């Protein structure tokens, strides 16, 4: 009787390490899918990641590729510089909501507008995780954070920003899609989108961005299971999943 391997660690996952992420956090799922993509496309040796500021700052401990660390929000500019010098190499950014939609709003808009041939993975969990649960630009109306203790009031703190919807108005981007990492049923779309965003870069199609609705059980003050439900019940109605732009 022969045994067939149906599930294993991706080859580009650093051997024998476990992530530092909280129970129920979806960073690990997205990391794994990036690794699967790297393995399936055979691009480990030619791919460089931009390590962000935030909970995923040390993602280089898990994904075994070259890395450059970027200041908070500047990953699209760093990726631009790299890609313009080495168009024969692949580069991706991995940015949280504070990183991409707040401090780095200018950098993402202009990289998208120039249609830099880069891949952007945008993790939206509607809160600042690393710094301990402060309001993010994507925090929902009424959502409680350590800096919106009575819930986000748009009169005081503005409205949650829909980045895919904003960026799709630009002529530049090749591909923009919002997916979710919260439910097993969401994962095939997540995998397909991330793989497409890398394949687009290989095919020189230009700027590709995948927004991933993600959880933060610790700072949301919810159990992992409740967090996954909250993405479906509260986030998806405001941040609808789907394809916003596809150049093809």
């Amino acid at each position, binding site marked *: 009787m022969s045994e067939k391997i149906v599930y294993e660690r991706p080859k580009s996952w650093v051997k024998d390490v476990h992530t530092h992420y909280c129970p129920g956090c979806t960073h690990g799922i997205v990391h794994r899918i990036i690794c699967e993509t790297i393995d399936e496309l055979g691009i*480990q*040796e*030619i791919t*460089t990641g*931009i*390590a962000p500021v935030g909970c995923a*700052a*040390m993602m*280089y401990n898990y994904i*075994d*590729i*070259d*890395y*450059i*660390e*970027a*200041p908070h929000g*500047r990953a699209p*500019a*760093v*990726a*631009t*510089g*790299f*890609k*313009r*010098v*080495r168009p024969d*190499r692949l*580069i991706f950014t991995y940015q949280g909501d504070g990183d991409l939609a707040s401090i780095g709003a*200018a*950098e993402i*808009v*202009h990289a998208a507008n120039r249609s830099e041939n880069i891949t952007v993975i945008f993790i939206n969990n509607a809160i600042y995780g690393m710094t301990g649960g402060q309001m993010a630009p994507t925090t929902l109306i009424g959502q409680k954070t350590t800096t919106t203790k009575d819930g986000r009031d748009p009169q005081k703190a503005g409205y949650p920003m829909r980045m895919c919807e904003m960026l799709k108005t630009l002529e530049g981007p090749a591909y923009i899609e919002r997916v979710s990492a919260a439910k097993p049923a969401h994962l095939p779309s997540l995998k397909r989108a991330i793989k497409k965003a890398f394949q687009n870069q290989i095919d020189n199609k230009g700027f590709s961005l995948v927004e991933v609705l993600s959880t933060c059980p610790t700072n949301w003050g919810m159990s992992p299971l409740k967090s996954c439900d909250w993405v479906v019940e509260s986030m998806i109605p405001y941040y609808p999943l789907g394809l916003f732009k596809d150049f093809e």
Partner: protein
Amino acid sequence: MGRVLMKGTEAIAEAAIQAGCKHFFGYPITPQNEIPEYMSKRLFEVGGVYLQAESEVAASNMILGGGSTGEPVMTSSSSPGVSLMAEAISYMAGQETPVVIVNVMRAGPGLGGILPAQGDYSQATGGMAHGDFKLIVLAPSTVQESVDMMQKAFNLAQKYRNPVVMICDGVIGQIMEAVEIPEGNPENLSNPVDWACGYMKERGKRTILHSLILDPEELESHNKHLEAKWKRIKEKETDCETYKTEDAEVVISAFGTVARIARSVVDKLRAEGFKVGLIRPLLVSPFPEKEFEGLISTCKHILDVEMNWGQMKKDVESAVKYRIPVSFFGHTGGICPTVSEIEREVRKIFTELG
């Protein structure tokens, strides 16, 4: 390319290309706009890339990304724009990214004015940003020197994997002079395969260029490595010109355009028999302490002249171990000190010395 008449900014741009730089990222700001303008045409002719960034913040992060490949990359800006680059400069110092930054200084503070100044001396020599590190800072005095220094800037950046800054005042940026731009002589002093991103296959393992080090012992050990590198730079790379200082009782200390003006003062007063000389750091960081120390035996007074309120004076005083009195004369706001003004100051000092 022979001797040609060129504006300083354009000569700097062509010299950078000759030095092997094929990638420029920048944002317009007066008085250095001719650098990006020149690059935007010339770089594509030589198979390079010019990119107009959305801000100086982005431009500096683009050279962080570009420099992480090991290829020579640069940006240029002027004072307010350079302040916006502080964040990336700190990261590049920590991650040891070899890049070149040209600052054609304008008068500050704030938006200030667009005329020549040297108000960014302390900023540049102090490292420009948060954290504990130093930058190599070149300060040319003529257009030809700024041309020659571009090759040196790229070589030093590569040799030490450290950001290198060239501070010119607006005079050097805007003046037209006859220059000879030498064919490039890039020294391949760092092998990108050893450290840069994009060579995982050749290296057989990956590289991580980062400055986040949460373990205090590990971070201190990294900082010790940076400090040891700086000590090597200090030992090997200082550059200073002394002019008629051998017997000089009064020495003018100056850098950049001011040094050029001061040289005329020395010649004029020497013709009258005054024992006056000039000392001029070509690299203001690391500061040429030994050359200044050499003045102690003969010099009775140093007149430091700058286009700021005396930012280099403290380095001069420290280098001469406070054994020679140092006085200061200067202008700010975009005003260049004149030969007659400096001459008057020197005469006053000789009168006081008796």
